[in-house]
């Protein structure tokens, strides 16, 4: 039985094409992936991301526990701030990537990937049980939140009509608690598209009312509902990693280009040793951005060659709606990762020229 967000009927009434996404019945497109993608880049789009998971960490020992559980340095966070982070296994492979919200010194919220909610919660409980932490409580609040992402250059103008909160003072990767369309909402200036915008968390019984209010408020700007198809092409153009593709239990964050959130100078955290070792010995593979030179669309698992040697595989690929050219992320052997490296991608029976480029694509 597929899980449904509180907006399932709304999507169906809008004529969305629904797909099974990690056990969730989700809209993959409404008006068309390219149209939706371009709307987010030029105006604004509204995404139902209620499938995402929310896990609260409470208690006076919360920070100490989170510092041990995650790879980024959570001690730098102040109330109202968000941090991109990840949890690793003992071998350094990634359990999940996440955003971490600090509400108070003794209250944090993890936003995690939908298909990983149970796995993450079990892992967090295991790390808690096996460590020596005092006064830490974990609560899986995933069913208590609906989440919408409002993204695009017009996102501020649209949201301003529905809230009295001071959006102008709300800076990137910070959040405030306010009201949107009369509904108590966590307003977070974050997103997965590379555009200005917000992620909005509120109680699921208000999902339809908030969705409808936003769609009506955004009509003058051309706000469109956006499915998972465009969510994927939008994040790919910005080289944002997607768990299960660029990140997995078999890929270390240093390989996936997440060195910037991997704080090896923290005294202890799960996965630190293999990461320190890898950093010292040299990172064997790197996540690169590839742009097609020849015709074709790179896809996940297509081989990447330098000369006749296979140097890696594509982790995600598509035809960029903004550039109208094939783009990909790929994990390749170090040495083949330098910007400007000429590669070939194995597309069916042919090898098609591509080039390592500096991200983001757009």
């Amino acid at each position, binding site marked *: 039985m597929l899980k449904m967000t509180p907006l399932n009927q709304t999507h169906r009434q809008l004529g969305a*094409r629904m797909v099974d996404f990690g056990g969730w019945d989700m809209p*993959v*497109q409404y008006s*068309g*992936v*390219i*149209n939706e993608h371009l709307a987010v880049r030029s105006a604004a789009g509204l995404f139902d991301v209620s499938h995402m998971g929310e896990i609260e960490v409470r208690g006076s020992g919360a920070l100490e526990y989170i510092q041990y559980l995650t790879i980024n340095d959570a001690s730098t966070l102040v109330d109202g701030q968000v941090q991109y982070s990840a949890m690793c296994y003992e071998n350094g492979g990634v359990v999940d990537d996440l955003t971490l919200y600090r509400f108070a010194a003794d209250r944090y919220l993890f936003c995690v990937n939908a298909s990983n909610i149970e796995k993450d919660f079990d892992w967090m409980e295991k790390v808690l049980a096996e460590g020596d932490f005092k006064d830490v409580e974990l609560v899986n609040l995933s069913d208590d939140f609906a989440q919408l992402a409002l993204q695009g250059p017009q996102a501020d103008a649209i949201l301003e009509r529905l809230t009295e909160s001071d959006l102008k003072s709300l800076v990137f990767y910070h959040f405030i608690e306010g009201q949107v369309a009369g509904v108590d909402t966590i307003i977070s200036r974050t997103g997965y598209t590379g555009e200005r915008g917000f992620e909005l968390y509120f109680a699921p019984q208000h999902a339809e009312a908030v969705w409808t209010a936003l769609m009506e408020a955004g009509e003058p700007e051309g706000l469109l509902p956006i499915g998972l*198809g465009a969510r*994927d*092409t939008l994040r790919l153009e910005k080289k944002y990693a997607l768990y299960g593709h660029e990140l997995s239990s078999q890929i270390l964050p240093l390989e996936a280009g997440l060195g910037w959130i991997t704080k090896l100078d923290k005294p202890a955290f799960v996965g630190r040793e293999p990461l320190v070792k890898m950093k010292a010995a040299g990172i064997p593979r790197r996540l690169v951005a590839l742009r097609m030179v020849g*015709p*074709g*669309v790179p*896809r996940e698992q297509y081989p990447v060659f330098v000369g006749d040697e296979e140097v890696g595989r594509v982790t995600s690929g*598509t*035809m960029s*709606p903004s550039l*109208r050219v*094939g783009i990909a992320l790929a994990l390749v052997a170090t040495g083949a990762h330098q910007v400007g490296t000429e590669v070939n991608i194995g597309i*069916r029976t042919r090898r098609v020229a591509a080039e390592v480029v500096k991200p983001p694509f757009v």
Partner: protein
Amino acid sequence: MDIRNGLKYSEEHEWLLVEGDVATIGITDFAQDSMGDVVFVELPEVGTSVDAGQACGVVESVKAVSDIFSPVSGEVVEVNEVLPDTPEEVNSSPYEQGWIARIKLSDAGEVDKLMDADAYRTFVSGQ
């Protein structure tokens, strides 16, 4: 759903227009709608011979890769050269500007085994 009388249809959702001993092929409105935005078309080469049921090209949408299966045997005598630059024609005009290739039939009897419009309507309604 646009299903046109006078065309023949395959179970792989290709259409076929026979004029003399040459058949024009393309993908149906149902097929283009199922795929979503078409962003890339790989055409067969003129002069290649194809067998009925054999893959002779590829249509790709943002998310999916689909083979084009030739519904008939014969020699590819012409391809729609504009499609690589304007693959969206497959969406906007699947039966006209979005045609894929023309095949000189080597066995005209194969055409009779394909569905007519009514049979294809029934076939699609069961999908």
